[in-house]
């Protein structure tokens, strides 16, 4: 079976904003890059509106980007630069949050 045809320019982010775009921007840092979300975004939304990854699986190191979005699967715990862990789907993005999708020392 051959590889699938590319679907055209692949967005560099996962989530697509369809509505509620008229909200105050919320500045935060993601892997050292300055980003912004919108007031009322969860961390998960804010991060996945910018990229594809929240964290890396504990054992395989594979990329993870959440799953249930309702605080059940526990797969969206994201690290802050200070070593805290936040559950991304149930925590709102706040100004100045400094988030990392990788642990220090990982490639």
């Amino acid at each position, binding site marked *: 079976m051959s590889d699938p045809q590319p679907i055209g320019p692949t967005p560099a982010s996962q989530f697509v904003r369809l509505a509620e775009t008229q909200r105050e921007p919320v500045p935060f840092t993601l892997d050292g890059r300055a980003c912004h979300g919108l007031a009322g975004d969860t961390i998960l939304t804010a991060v996945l509106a910018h990229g594809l990854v929240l964290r890396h699986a504990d*054992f395989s190191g594979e990329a993870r980007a959440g799953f249930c979005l309702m605080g059940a699967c526990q797969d969206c715990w994201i690290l802050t630069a200070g070593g805290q*862990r936040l559950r991304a789907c149930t925590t709102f993005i706040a100004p100045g949050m400094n988030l990392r999708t990788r642990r220090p020392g990982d490639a």
Partner: protein
Amino acid sequence: MTEKRLVDAAIIGGGIVGSSAALALRGMGLSVMVLERDLCGAHSSGVNYGGVRRQGRPLTQLPLSRRAHGIWGRLRELIGIDGEYLRSGHLKIARSEADLASLEAYRERSAGYGMDLRMIGAGVLRAQYPWLGARAIGGSYCPQDGHANPRLVSPAFARAAARAGADIREHCPADEMEHDGQCFTVSSGTALQVRSRFLLNCAGAWAGTVARRFGEAVPMVSAHPVMAVTEPLDMFMTLSLGVEGGGIYGRQAPRGNCIIGGSRGYAIDACRARPGHEAIAHVLQRSVELLPALRHAHIIRAWSGTEGYLPDREPVIGHSATTPGLVHGFGFAGAGFQIGPAVGEVLAELVRDGTSTTPIAAFAISRFADAAHLPPEGGP
């Protein structure tokens, strides 16, 4: 139709003690049946903290513990798996000068038992174990003590015994037991009846029932140590940790989860226990002081089990005082995992030879014979 069997030795209880006894007896060429009420290694043997530790035991237990240390060194050869066993080293930390003195005294008293204990001062502690909280001012280090995964190790002893030809019966409670002067008869419902010349009482926290059945009740109570576990964390605990004078204790499994113990839960029925909120709160409040790296971690679940405790916190190991052929091995007060495999071998020796090469006089059941007032059984 009742199944009837005749074996040299019937063993009540398929935890680490009963299963290692079965394995040892098979090595001696004796026929063995194990009657396990639930699943082998599913109770205390399978849900304990996982410490594989000699340091800190009363001197009476050190010969057994040293013997067990040798067995643990051959674990894979014996049971076919490594069970996550690591000789990580065990550090018993001191929080005061008095603690240090106590540890130093123990080190001296236990000098002949090959543990190679080393006192560590504050400076070395900070330098070598920077992840320890500030209240630790020193400690006693045992380089070859360690930890393992009891959920894997204990059932593996039972499987090894089965491979060696032991008849292991799970979901098989020992309901009735009798001795006719020569021979034991143990029944499990109407399905099974086994006769044997020897009966090994390895029924863990429930062994008091067997002892009482043969006229030698012991004042054993049940208690329920609580364990809590974190999500996988970056490895930082390079050894297993205890605290002189009591408190929480912890280890980090190879996958990164930290297991923290040190509080008490309660029974929900005769066989099962759970942590209450005080136990979990205790772990939450105490752990960060000892292990500051946990301040950003979470507890993802907690559990408990059922352990048997005798008043002197020493087990009962040895021949029955009332019934020939009955041999006891129970009451380990939450510290049976490391010495369990040696106890199993000792019980087998008692069956075959009548005596054991390892001193066990301190654990004689007769020490309770004079107890004028026996409190009601804490277990079922």
